[in-house]
């Protein structure tokens, strides 16, 4: 899922201190799961901002709501009445959710309360690691389930480069594994080392404005003749 982390409190306060009625909107999706934008975090932020306002002698009123998911128009419709009574919104969703809320309520300024970090996994409670760069051309079937685009520091598709350390680490150190070393070892364990000889051609990066897709089975609904 998408992993996000809260912006520094003072930075959030600075963006919203000019507004009187502030609605903090959480998200029940990914950012709730990664403990950044769910019910508890939304209440915490509202409390801390209220404190900031008091300290700074700014007259402000914070209210809160957690949408089911901010990346969906039906769930965003749930906050329509609350938005009417707000001078600005703080989104505790990922960048997609925050931006979508801004699209759905274009007359109200939306400020991100979180920085969206990556698509990742839970290594443990509150400990996450990136696993996908959403390149749109998943290759991990050939690479033992290890993504070279994401996990190789240079995104090398025909690796490893010459910087692999003796202990199988990336040349960057910092506890980063060499993705291609790990790919090699996993393919070896699976008896699939022949895959290492695949020469992968350059990627066709899809990089022209927001990517858009229609899910399989829904073509008839959106494709016009």
């Amino acid at each position, binding site marked *: 899922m998408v992993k996000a982390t809260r912006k520094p409190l003072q930075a959030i306060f600075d963006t919203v201190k000019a507004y009187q009625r502030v609605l903090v909107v959480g998200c029940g999706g990914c950012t709730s799961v990664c403990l950044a934008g769910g019910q508890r975090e939304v209440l915490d932020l509202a409390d801390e901002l209220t404190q900031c306002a008091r300290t700074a002698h700014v007259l402000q009123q914070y209210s809160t709501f957690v949408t089911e998911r901010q990346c969906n128009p039906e769930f965003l419709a749930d906050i329509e009445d609350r938005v009417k009574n707000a001078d600005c919104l703080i989104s505790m969703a990922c960048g997609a959710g925050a931006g979508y809320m801004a699209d759905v309520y274009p007359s109200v300024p939306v400020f991100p309360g979180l920085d969206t970090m990556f698509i990742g996994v839970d290594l443990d409670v509150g400990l996450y690691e990136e696993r996908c760069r959403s390149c749109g051309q998943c290759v991990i079937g050939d690479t033992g389930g290890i993504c070279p685009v994401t996990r190789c520091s240079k995104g090398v598709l025909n*690796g*490893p480069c010459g910087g692999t350390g003796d202990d199988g*680490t990336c040349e960057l150190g910092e506890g980063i594994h060499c993705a291609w070393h790990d790919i090699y070892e996993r393919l070896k364990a699976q008896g699939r080392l022949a895959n290492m000889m695949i020469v992968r051609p350059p990627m066709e990066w899809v990089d022209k404005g927001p990517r858009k897709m229609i899910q399989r089975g829904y073509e008839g609904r959106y494709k016009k003749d």
Partner: protein
Amino acid sequence: MKSGSNLEKVLSAGHFAVTAELGPPAGTDLEVVRKKAELLRGAVDAVNVTDNQTAVVRMSSVAVSALLVQTGLEPVMQMVCRDRNRIAMQSDILGASALGIRNLTCLTGDHQSFGNQGGAKKVFDIDSVQLVAMVKRIRDEKKLLGSDEEIAGTLPMYIGVAANPCAKPYEFRALRLAKKVEAGADYVQTQCIYDVKMFSEFMKAVRDLGVDKKCRILVGITPLKSAGMTRYMAENVPGIVIPEEIIKRMNDAPKGKGAEVGTAICLELIEQLRAIEGVAGIHIMAIEWEQKVREIVEKANLLPRPTV
């Protein structure tokens, strides 16, 4: 002849080739380039011009290579995948050819976080294997990447790569070189070698794959200056293996004699490495020590350089 470069001619004639490295200046002072060029002139067959090595901003490899062409010293232009996408790379390759550059070593590149622009966005649009295939396609088929349209003119370019025989996974390194050769590499310049046994094993695997018959192999040589440098390289540079015996000899060198002992070790290494079947030359990377190159080449009995 694929490129007609001096390096290609020397190797094709069966001579033992010698290349060295020239780091462009971190500024606009051309005197630095001229001085380094004169130190290397006549001592080597071609000079590698590094491409923002260790991700530190320096004068571009294409500009310095072109300057060397003007002074009659043959450049090997290095190109890394870190800073340019396929559009810029192909454009620079065409430009390099127009400026008389005939050798191109294709590299992945050091990560941007090592240098003085840590916040830079990495590019790595294509990787080194893909870069080799791209250059070969322009040279041999006159077609740009992903295009069937034929370009006007020719691209006489000798295509090179790097290889690191001493990096993990060891048993894959010869196969990786085979992939690069399959993609179109004409020559390879290896990472600097100190462990002759390890390199011999790599070369055996290379020969078993028949790679030495399709690609000229130049062994990387970096003379050691001091015990401190030796320890630093052994401990901090990934993929560089320095045997204990060499570390000890450098450590035991009398004060002020480190460079002397380092040079002696370097000459012994050259002698042992050139005896290995399939080794076609050496690539001397005397880091900011270009004045040492001629002495090494001379003492290794590799002067004068052949005229072909």
